[in-house]
């Protein structure tokens, strides 16, 4: 198959995607629907997801990701091509888009107020994100919060939610009619699936929001909800450890993060029932937001 050229219109960016892998195209159509297009005026980045070269192509098919001639990752099993493309898009934005202050966190909003959820892998963040997105919260981003420098304003970059291992079965049980990608098995992150958020997240993908709280979630089995208020130094250190790469930040990035922890409510929350945490957010956090 020759390389097919398509476009993903994902505000604030547009990607050109060239691929010769049928399965990747099917996943793109299913997950992205109208955002997956045949033409675009001004793509920002030119990505390629193609089959590996040489004899290998027939023995153990591989998928390679390239960002305009540059290949940042090793190839993976072609069956997992869609997951590689998703990671590739994250990599592209994280390494190129310096005009935003990027925090590695999920960000969701309700009533125009956004909460940032920075969390290392294994904290159950994606399961939380999925649950909130389908229970009245709008998804702005699952992995990368794009913050306008010098402000608390977060710009949506709506993409599917990346779920791993046990979360996959949970999410399929909770949302049987939702749009899931095919499962990528045995990746370096384990089994991975991508879940498209509800239609209203897509429809509001150009509406920004103000971050009013930072919540560090930690899933612990059979743990009833426990919330700790963090002081500003603690919140900053927690962000610096997990969610923000200061070696890439300039003065502006530093000042933005500092202002963020000073103007937000900052919490650490350990939980096992997502609904309990959601209730805390809706009843205690959102109403206390400073205007």
């Amino acid at each position, binding site marked *: 198959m020759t390389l097919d050229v398509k476009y993903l219109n994902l505000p604030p960016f547009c990607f050109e995607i060239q691929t010769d892998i049928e399965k990747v195209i099917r996943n793109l159509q299913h997950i992205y629907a109208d955002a997956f297009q045949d033409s675009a005026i001004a793509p920002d980045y030119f990505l390629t997801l193609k089959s*590996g*070269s040489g004899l290998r192509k027939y023995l153990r098919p591989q998928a390679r990701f390239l960002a305009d001639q540059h290949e940042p990752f090793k190839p993976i099993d072609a069956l997992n091509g869609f997951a590689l493309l998703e990671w590739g898009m994250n990599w592209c934005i994280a390494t190129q888009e310096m005009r935003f202050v990027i925090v590695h966190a999920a960000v969701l909003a309700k009533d125009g107020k956004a909460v940032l959820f920075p969390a290392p892998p294994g904290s159950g963040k994606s399961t939380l994100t999925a649950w909130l997105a389908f229970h009245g919260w709008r998804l702005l981003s699952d992995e990368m919060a794009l913050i306008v420098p010098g402000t608390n304003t977060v710009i949506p970059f709506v993409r599917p939610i990346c779920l791993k291992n046990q979360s996959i079965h949970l999410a399929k049980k909770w949302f049987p009619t939702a749009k899931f990608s095919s499962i990528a098995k045995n990746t370096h992150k384990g089994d991975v699936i991508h879940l498209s958020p509800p239609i209203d997240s897509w429809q509001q993908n150009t509406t920004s929001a103000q971050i009013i709280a930072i919540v560090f979630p930690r899933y612990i089995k059979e743990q009833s909800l426990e919330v700790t208020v963090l002081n500003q130094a603690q919140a900053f250190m927690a962000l610096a450890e997990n969610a923000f790469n200061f070696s890439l930040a300039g003065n502006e990035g530093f000042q933005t993060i500092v202002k963020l922890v000073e103007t937000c409510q900052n919490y650490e929350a350990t939980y096992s029932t997502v609904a309990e945490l959601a209730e805390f957010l809706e009843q205690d956090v959102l109403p206390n937001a400073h205007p």
Partner: protein
Amino acid sequence: MHIHDIIIDLFLGKSPGQLPLSVWVQVIRVLRYQQCLARIGWRLQDSGLATELPVYALNHLKNADLIAQKQYHQVHYEAMLLQRQLQPLTSHLLFLKGAAYSLNDDSAVGRGRTYSDIDLLVDRKSLPVIEKELCLYGFVAEDLDEYDQKYYREWSHEIPPLRHGSRGTLLDIHHNLLPLITGRAPDISLFFRHTRQTNAGYTVFSPAAMFLHSTVHLILSEEIKHGFRDITDLYLIIEQYQNNDFWQELVSLSIESGFAIEVFLALRYLEKILSLQVPVAVHQKLSTYRPSEFRLRSLDFIFLRKLKPAHPSFGNHSDVVADWLLLLRGHYLKMPLHILLKHLGRKFYLQAVSAVFGSNFLDKKTENHRNK
């Protein structure tokens, strides 16, 4: 108008008129590949053309500018560490190429410049102790196979590039401008007389020596990936530093060190591609070093292609031919013939294996690496 000409006009501060958005997309893409986005950004600001740009272009130029700023901070940090660690071990410690551009005070060529490694020039006899010292600070020879290590140490008498374990910085340590094996390495003590100190105390080449060094590397390359960046580097050095002293120093140093032909060629391409005005006196002094018409035609074929703002996706057959000629020429110029044949033989072998088994077959780090 061809995309090459549009980009050259933008660099030189000439308005290309109203361009459709699709053309801007191409311009940005080519410039990003050539690693010239940040450079074009400030050139457009300085020439006043930035006000005519669409938001699409402004966004990407801003990103490039911010990335370059971060690299600028990083190189200053690395330079400070390296100076502190290595100065006691060698009587000469110079920063070269990209790092030198950035460390140089207020240099136009350093503005918006990005680079992938840091090049240093030290005393030859200090190489072993420097390599040992750098190892203590976390710098390790890149993961090369035995053949490549042998090439570096026995044939080239160089240290292979060293990478820092956690910061990822790549360090290339030299004791001359070119590997001795090429037979063209000059008497380096000549070049040590053409240096200057930056305000922060780093030693770099004088502008004329810097121009000469960059010229030598460009014209003797076996592979040119960022030709437009390389030729605009040279343009910016001349634009900022040219005066009678500069030209005198450049001409005499190039003749003394045996690189007059290379300088002749660099100036030729600066004139042809970027319309640089070279003083008549300089032309006269270098005219005896002009290659034969026949040679000039093949050199022009290669360099007029490789130094223009090109992108592999927009290339054609001639560009592929130019790449091959450059490869052959570059290798031929830098190696004695019997070693060249061995080396080329191996390179062809590697390419053949890649074609059959897939290009990642030979990657040491992949799970399926097999012993050759």
